[in-house]
């Protein structure tokens, strides 16, 4: 039982939380004509 708990602790401790790269439109650029 202790071995299982220890293994679980090691497993949880080894998980590195990486921020999930979100799919999205990041930027839009327009070139316009006729602007004063």
């Amino acid at each position: 039982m202790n071995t299982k708990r220890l293994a679980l602790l090691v497993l949880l401790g080894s998980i590195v939380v990486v921020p999930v790269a979100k799919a999205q439109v990041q930027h839009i650029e327009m070139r316009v004509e006729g602007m004063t």
Partner: protein
Amino acid sequence: MKQHLGRQSGVQTVDVSLLDGKVQVTPKGDGEIDPVQLLKATYDSGVTAAEMDMTARGKMVKDAAGSLALEVAPNRVFTFAPNEASKGLESLAGTPTMVTLRGQLYKKPEGKKKSKDFPAVLTLLILEIEKKE
């Protein structure tokens, strides 16, 4: 124009440079931004959009017609205009790989004066692949 574009769905900020005629649009993170609506809103502001470029991150998918497309939200995909760069991404279709790229969504037809007839669907011509992750 800045205020008009700023009122469009999914738009967070708009920066206008009078000097070089550039308009920078930063979207909100809600995925609601619609480039066609931006083109129409620009026209309604009394100016003509000559070119529109977009930087986006998403997954490679096949659209209903079987063409390669970038999925930036569950209900929003941009089909690629075929070029060398898009051919290189074919193998990523259906995989979880996220690709960040810059591409051209719209270019005013040569010699055409002011027109409000924008294409209903914009295709994305890849200019640069920034990241694959």
